[in-house]
């Protein structure tokens, strides 16, 4: 029983870490330009396709390339679409990102067909190791480590470098940041680029997990990440991260521990929980009082 508990905890931590990263990638951009970018899903998908198609060239090519693709797509979205919508309100921006998401999915269908593409990406990580009677998925551990390293790096970047500090300031109060001379375009581009890197990490974990990528690969996690970011407090970088982690953790635990006939409804429970959180803490769990998330 303890073995199963530890196993499920590790799995839940890893699910939480993945979703936390995905939510963070949305929250980073939202903090700066109030865009909850649903098309983040297609960045994840593109990065995953890249891993699948280039894996046979070796991980040292595939992984950097997949990061590059994610960052490039993220920046491309900003420059072609979102930078032209600066005065739109968050609701319109969200719809626009939905539109972009829909559009890109169809493009992927046309390019790569509706069928999933498969490749044994980092199959070594798919094994299970037994440790003191506890069976643990290597991938779960790897996910937690990757997330930890990324968060540490991001933290150091945000607190120790001038660009990071500027991004942090812009995420906290974009208007004032501009008024004191922080260049808007550069900071926004930076937030999209970082968001792309996080998306690439999410894509890596998910691709190793499933080994198969289709046109709507990134949609499921992005929906949950968006939900997580909002209930955690999308106005704050830490809020998005914590909310995403929470949703991932709870969903994973429910999947393990709910009785069979109820586990079909696990997403429903999570959604009910989400509505409850929004009712009592509309600005997010981590935000005190009324936040600034406006229509």
């Amino acid at each position, binding site marked *: 029983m303890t073995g199963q508990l530890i196993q499920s905890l590790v799995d839940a931590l890893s699910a939480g870490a993945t979703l936390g990263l995905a939510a963070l990638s949305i929250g980073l951009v939202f903090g700066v330009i109030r865009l909850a970018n649903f098309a983040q899903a297609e960045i994840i998908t593109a990065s995953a396709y890249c891993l699948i198609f280039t894996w046979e060239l070796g991980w040292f090519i595939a992984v950097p390339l997949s990061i590059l693709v994610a960052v490039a797509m993220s920046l491309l979205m900003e420059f072609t679409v979102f930078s032209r919508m600066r005065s739109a309100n968050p609701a319109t921006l969200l719809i626009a990102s939905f539109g972009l998401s829909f559009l890109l999915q169809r493009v992927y269908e046309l390019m790569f067909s509706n069928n999933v593409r498969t490749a044994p990406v980092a199959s070594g990580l798919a094994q299970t190791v037994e440790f003191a009677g506890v069976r643990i998925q290597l991938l779960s551990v790897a996910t937690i480590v990757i997330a930890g390293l990324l968060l540490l790096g991001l933290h150091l970047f945000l607190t120790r470098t*001038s660009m990071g*500090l*500027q991004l*942090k*300031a812009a995420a*906290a*109060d974009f*208007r*004032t*940041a*501009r*008024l*004191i*001379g*922080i*260049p*808007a375009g550069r900071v926004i581009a930076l937030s999209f680029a970082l968001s792309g890197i996080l998306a690439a990490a999410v894509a890596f974990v998910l691709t190793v997990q499933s080994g198969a990528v289709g046109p709507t690969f990134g949609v499921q996690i992005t929906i949950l990440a968006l939900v997580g970011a909002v209930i955690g407090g999308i106005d704050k970088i830490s809020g998005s991260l914590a909310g995403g982690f929470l949703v991932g953790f709870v969903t994973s635990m429910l999947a393990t521990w709910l009785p069979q006939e109820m586990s079909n409804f696990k997403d429903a429970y999570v959604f009910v929980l989400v509505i409850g959180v929004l009712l009592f803490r509309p600005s997010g769990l981590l935000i005190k009082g009324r936040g600034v998330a406006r229509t």
Partner: protein
Amino acid sequence: MSIADDARFGSRQPGRGLRVEGLQVAYGGVPAVRGIDLEVKAGEAVGLIGPNGAGKSSTLLGIMGAIARSGRVLVDGQDLAGLPPEKVVRRGVALVPEGRHVFAELSVADNLRLGAVARRDRTGYSEAMEHVLTLFPMLRDFGHRQAGLLSGGQQQQLAIGRALMSDPDILLLDEPSLGLSPTAVDTVFEALDVIRAAGKAVLVVEQRAEFTIAFCDRTFVLHDGEITLTLKPQDAEKVDVLTKAYFG
């Protein structure tokens, strides 16, 4: 006041002032500022007073390029037309926004560092930091404290310090006395006096008419987006003028 004597404090080329000609600002077709002309010379403080909604803040935001405007905003004879705020700061104009808006979750030191992002040079940074910390010694003591934990008066000092870090020739302040205790207001205006004496052009928007008129070299009364009166320091005593200033 040793800083005031220090000729290097502030700009290396004194004499750059601000000229505004026919400034107009509108929100969604509703005019807020209807053609303002004003000039602030180096080493001069100019006040802008008037009732709520008169267009005082809009004037400052218009100068900063933060809202759409027409008319000319000249610094050193060069028009700032079409420049976004971050470029305007690089031309030597800095704003201390209404409500201070320090970055509450960042430390005092980080707030000051961010103010220096728009510096036109890379060399004067530590010098500027030293000047700001001499002007507001409190900031030195609280360098590592979160800015959000400072009192209102301390936050105002931080906001001014942050603006000075970009080494501006022209300093715009939007209601620096708002919500501050009388002693805190004194601290702020003593600092403004030093800044003015150091050769900077200071344009301050205020609600406290009497105080502002006495402090500034000239004070304009703004009403419905237009300048209706120009006052000298000695007018501060005249109550009827003040009444007129507020009720048109």
